């Protein structure tokens, strides 16, 4: 793996792009355990370590529970710390995910989205990170390898911002992005290291002149106050994400916001989507537009904190909306993105009709025809003013 030059356009897979971002961020500690489809990230990064390209302390732990525990310990000690995982690996970290966020440690973790077992499956869906949506982590989703790379670099600044101090998951679709080769523009190493700066923690455990207690028992008299403060940090994260996005745009020319809209301004029907499917949808939207159909899209980048107010405003003029979820919440009322979007639209002056499509579970492909079908359904909903059902399963054999 070569060291790249300033704004060098290079063909990389999503995993390679993320590993490059980690090399450039140059964390003090990485503790990780390999799992498909994330394996390459830690494999490539560990070769950067052995080749002397980074001076990171790499800890090859025996499980993801240990990976997250070691990362928490390192972050509390005062080290900029990272790990990476997928699916069942994320599930094994569960207990410590909450300890990382509750302890307000700014850990950055790429998660390569993969279906949770069982039945056992190694391909893409969002059931892993969506399950962790209430773990107190910030969730950034990526449409392609470029976004995964850019999100990684911004995530460090977001996590460590004094108003935030929360861990961040940088999510990208397993195989579709992680193993797909694309042109990616990498920044110069120095540009990245200047952008991320150095990690400063107020009370590092290793400061033996100023001893602290980390992780003490927190009972009825204080736990609630600490959780209230954590909730506020998530509220404040929204502005910080926008601010860091603007700063990053000055470097790259690409502006990252809470979500991206595509031909949405005058759209009559729109879909709300997360991840790589947005790329497919853009192609279909262009086709529909050429037929005179006013189709649009809103692609969510930041799922936690959920930008409910901004989404409400962006979708308020649309008559019929389909929310595409690559995860089922098994609530009997659709996927997690549907619940959030529908709740956001409750306060809209003119509430649009909103339906849900659960799709792509376990790596099931989604193609242009399927997205076209969604828009056809939306046009019918718009014309009749009626929803047939809240939840549809797109691409499943009926």
């Amino acid at each position, binding site marked *: 793996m070569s060291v790249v030059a300033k704004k060098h356009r290079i063909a990389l897979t999503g995993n390679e792009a993320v590993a490059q971002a980690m090399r450039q961020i140059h964390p003090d500690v990485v503790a990780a355990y390999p799992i498909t489809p994330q394996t390459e990230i830690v494999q490539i990064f560990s070769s950067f370590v052995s080749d002397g390209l980074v001076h990171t302390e790499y800890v090859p732990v025996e499980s993801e529970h240990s990976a997250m525990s070691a990362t928490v310990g390192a972050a509390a000690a005062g080290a900029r710390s990272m790990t990476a995982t997928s699916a069942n690996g994320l599930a094994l970290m569960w207990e410590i995910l909450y300890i990382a966020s509750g302890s307000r440690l700014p850990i950055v973790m790429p998660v390569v989205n993969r279906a949770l077992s069982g039945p056992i499956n190694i391909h893409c869906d969002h059931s892993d990170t969506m399950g962790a949506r209430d773990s107190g982590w910030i969730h950034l989703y990526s449409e392609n390898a470029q976004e995964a790379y850019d999100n990684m670099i911004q995530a460090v600044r977001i996590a460590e911002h004094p108003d935030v101090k929360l861990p961040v998951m940088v999510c990208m679709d397993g195989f579709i992005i992680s193993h797909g080769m694309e042109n990616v523009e990498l920044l110069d190493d120095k540009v990245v290291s200047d952008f991320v700066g150095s990690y400063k923690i107020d009370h590092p455990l290793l400061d033996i002149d100023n001893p602290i207690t980390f992780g*003490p028992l927190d009972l009825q008299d204080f736990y609630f106050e600490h959780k209230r403060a954590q909730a506020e940090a998530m509220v404040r994260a929204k502005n910080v994400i926008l601010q860091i996005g603007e700063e990053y745009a000055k470097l790259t020319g690409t502006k990252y916001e809470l979500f991206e809209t595509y031909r949405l301004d005058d759209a009559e029907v729109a879909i709300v989507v997360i991840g790589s499917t947005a790329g497919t949808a853009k192609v279909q939207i262009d086709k529909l537009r050429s037929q005179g159909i006013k189709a649009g899209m809103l692609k969510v980048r930041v799922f936690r904190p959920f930008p409910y107010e901004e989404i409400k405003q962006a979708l308020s003029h649309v008559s019929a909306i389909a929310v595409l979820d690559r995860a089922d919440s098994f609530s009997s009322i659709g996927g997690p993105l549907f619940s959030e979007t529908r709740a956001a639209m409750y306060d809209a002056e003119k509430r649009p009709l909103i339906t849900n499509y659960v799709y792509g579970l376990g790596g099931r492909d989604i193609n242009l025809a399927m997205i076209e079908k969604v828009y056809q359904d939306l046009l019918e909903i718009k014309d009749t003013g009626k929803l047939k059902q809240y939840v549809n399963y797109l691409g499943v054999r009926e």
Partner: protein
Amino acid sequence: MSDNKKQVVRKDAAWHELPVGGIIPAGGTAKEFKTGDWRTIRPIHDREKCIDCMFCWAYCPDMSVIVEDGKVVGFDYDHCKGCGICAKVCPPRVSAITMVPDSEADAETKKEEEAV
């Protein structure tokens, strides 16, 4: 330092006044936390019997055995949780520590005070 400690653990602090992440940003703060009120039985020391072997001092999980000039002089009841380990490790032939229900010990103290 102790002012700082008091501020760190101020019981009526609002959520935005607390240290971030539930840390306690000072050392030795366990002193401020009186675990003695968890106790239902308390150790009573018999100075006459005691041979100052220091077993109780070494085993006490709460550092509540008070030693002065190499001699056990009593217990720190603000922090002693009444676990009874000290009484258990005191050599059987010495048995210088007896565990007494706190209610009885309190009644005894009251009586003595009245007598005075």
